[in-house]
């Protein structure tokens, strides 16, 4: 690096704490070790390789789609999977898969980054857009449903879009750039929101369900966000670093804030939370025994009526009683779109049906306000002619 100048003799204390032979250039976010660039690359890449091999994520010949947003996580993921695939002969065929949510001023720019990545990493690229798939862009959804629930819609729709994109490419495995910080945040959020159903599985690296042929995995499960940033910085990777224009919901924001201050006090806490998360197990369900003292007779009489009770869905359809309970849990498909669903109608179709009812009947010509400016559209809608 400083070849032209006469090299200064380094003090022993300035050397990398792993190799003791090169100058330390960074402090490792995970454990505050002072490292040289080479050792950092080595530990960073080896840890991800360990994560992949220990969880048996891939088999030779697998075709794997990388969920690529153009952000730092997925860009580093594409780069490192390419590196590891070549170094350790995973025998993988890698494809970039991008979702175009239709957020002007954000996604269009980041997709340009993905397109450059496509050239840099020599991988095929497939872009699936919400508009094609659902006939809605996120900007339209936000202008219709308001900015507060934007992440709910976007999350549900993206999950399905990724699956559909993979299916279109004939791929059954999607890897995403979720990092350790995301995992830790999820563990905390599940506890704070009481999401018992997700509590046990929040830390699994590979999710798969019998109804869907598409597996998803997170090779960055144990990788610190800060280290991803550093890796991208030193490797001079080309990524897009603007946050989504629709900010995350307020409550998640508080958990994120907490995690940040905790990390400042104890850098290992992200790993610690994941370790805890892996040990959260639900107790076997105890059957609640409520002794009935009063109105014993009445209840007996009513029991016959109860068996004839039916549940009505939001769209007016009737819930069919499943013969076996397990049938509902896994492998059920949506009546409308055929996508995997635990209910009769999948979440995406439910949300879309709700949106469809509220779609403005009259569209103003050359309406530019729909492009992300949710508030302005709302005021326009309320104007009477």
């Amino acid at each position, binding site marked *: 690096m400083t070849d032209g100048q006469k090299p200064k003799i380094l003090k022993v204390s300035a050397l990398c704490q792993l190799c003791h032979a090169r100058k330390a250039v960074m402090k490792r976010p995970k454990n505050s070790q002072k490292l040289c660039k080479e050792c950092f690359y080595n530990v960073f890449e080896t*840890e991800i390789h360990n994560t992949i091999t220990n969880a048996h994520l891939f088999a030779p010949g697998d075709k794997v789609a990388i969920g690529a947003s153009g952000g730092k996580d997925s860009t580093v993921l594409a780069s490192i999977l390419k590196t590891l695939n070549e170094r350790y002969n995973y025998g993988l065929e890698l494809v970039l898969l991008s979702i175009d949510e239709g957020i002007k001023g954000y996604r269009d720019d980041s997709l340009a980054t993905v397109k450059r990545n496509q050239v840099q990493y020599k991988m095929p690229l497939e872009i699936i857009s919400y508009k094609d798939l659902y006939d809605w862009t996120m900007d339209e959804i936000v202008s219709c449903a308001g900015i507060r629930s934007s992440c709910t819609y976007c999350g549900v729709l993206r999950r399905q879009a990724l699956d559909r994109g993979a299916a279109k490419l004939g791929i059954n495995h999607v890897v995403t750039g979720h990092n350790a910080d995301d995992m830790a945040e999820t563990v905390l959020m599940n506890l704070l929101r*009481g999401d018992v159903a997700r509590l046990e599985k929040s830390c699994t690296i590979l999710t798969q369900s019998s109804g869907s042929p598409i597996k998803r995995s997170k090779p960055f499960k144990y990788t610190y966000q800060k280290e991803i940033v550093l890796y991208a910085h030193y490797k001079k990777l080309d990524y897009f670093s603007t946050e989504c224009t629709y900010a995350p919901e307020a409550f998640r924001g508080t958990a994120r804030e907490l995690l940040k*201050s*905790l990390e400042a006090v104890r850098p290992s806490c992200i*790993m610690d939370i994941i370790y*805890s*998360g892996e040990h959260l197990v639900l107790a076997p369900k105890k059957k609640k025994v409520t002794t009935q003292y009063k109105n014993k007779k009445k209840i007996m009489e009513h029991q016959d009526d109860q068996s004839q009770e039916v549940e009505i869905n939001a769209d007016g359809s009737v819930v069919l009683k499943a013969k076996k309970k397990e049938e509902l849990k896994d492998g059920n498909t949506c009546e409308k779109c055929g996508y995997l669903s635990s209910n009769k109608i999948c979440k995406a179709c439910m949300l879309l049906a709700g949106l469809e009812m509220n779609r403005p009947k009259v569209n103003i010509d050359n309406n530019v306000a729909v492009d992300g400016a949710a508030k302005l559209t709302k005021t326009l809608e309320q104007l009477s002619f």
Partner: protein
Amino acid sequence: MSDNQPVKYLDEEESSSSPCQRCKVENAILITRKEKFCQNCFIRFIRGKQRKQMQDDKYKVKYGPFIERHGQQKVLLALSGGESSVVLLDVMASLLQEQFEAHNGKQGFELIILNLDEFDLNHLNKKVGEILPLLIKRYSPANIQYKVLALNSYILDDSILDKIVLNDDFTGLSSTIIGSDKSYTLFDILELCPNKSSVEDLLTIIYNELILRTAYLEKCQTIIYGHSMTRIANEIIALTVKGRGSIIYEAISDHSKTYKDQQFQILFPLRDVLYAEIISYCKLTNMDEFILQSTIPKSKINKNLTIRDLTTRYFSQLDATGYASTASTVVKTGEKLGAPKSDSTSLVTHCQVCGVEIYQDPGNWLRNITVNKAAPIETEEEKEYLESYKASIGEPEIIDDRYKSVHICYGCIVTLGGVNSVSGFVWPLKDKNTDHFESQPYLVDSEVEKQKILDEFILTNDEDEDDDNE
């Protein structure tokens, strides 16, 4: 923001126009859980929460065959001197007072208050030994004992101490410190901690052990803590953050614990009460003057806080922003947890530092995701640097058979991480034989105080009866 607080006080105007929804006689003074309460009904409501948790017959005044069946019940109340534990003391003592009056001087159980003296550790504003007699007097004629124990009594003697070293590969080694001329007090040990959060974590282990030990020595069957719902929620998050998620299911539930072949019932009678309600109770019963507080102001800088400071602050911020129901959600979620499934290939071992079960080898887990291998050394220049490094550190200390490997759980690995490798860490390992203690000296003991007065002032005619052992 006060509108969002879980407990809302009514001003005079509002109060005069809204009757209490419970008694419908008095004017309401506050709103909690969407209900208007007058002072007495609120106090009764909070006391009712404890009664509901401790409904068991063994805590009631017993007659006839019940006396034999339940025996003499002793309840140990762990009192830190903070609002929650003082409120629990009030709730328990008023129960005893009621029993005393209703049953002609009989009590359903004996109450023993245990305080672990934090006066020096936390620079408290008052001495608990001075507060306790005043506090107990409020509940006369109920019979309540109190004891104050020094934290240093955790270390029974130096012979049980070991030096612990944590290696780079997350394995632990221990060696005896017998032979070294240094003796350690608890404060010396805490000085060896790498940071404040580690001190806090180890103190939790120490408190639990001391409380159990005292319950054992005083033959108490039940141990009660003043934890509010908010505090338990805080504990769940703090344990998760410290990498101790596997013990949540036990740590926050009413459970029984075995210590030296004795079973102890551990209860949190105020688990249904919000911290904000505890504060109101404290105020309404004029107990604020008894609360012990640290005279060290909490730092405003995040870096100087501990993990529990941060989670505590988080929950109080949630209260202020209208997310107060989060505490109840977290507690309910925590209550649904069970014991982790153990790796079938490895037997469950116990951590020798804190005593918890280890289900999965934490060292192995960490080694996979925290690689400590250097990239290859290539140039001549790099080789030279390595040589000069080797020369500068001298001979590494030889790990010989003085060192034995120790089992350390993930939480303790985190806590001990960053301990100076030269000084190491000193700790009484769990598997050491500590059966030899039969009593422990208290700083303050109400029984001893009473005995002293009796000994000094009662004139005895019959010298034979005066055979009190010292």
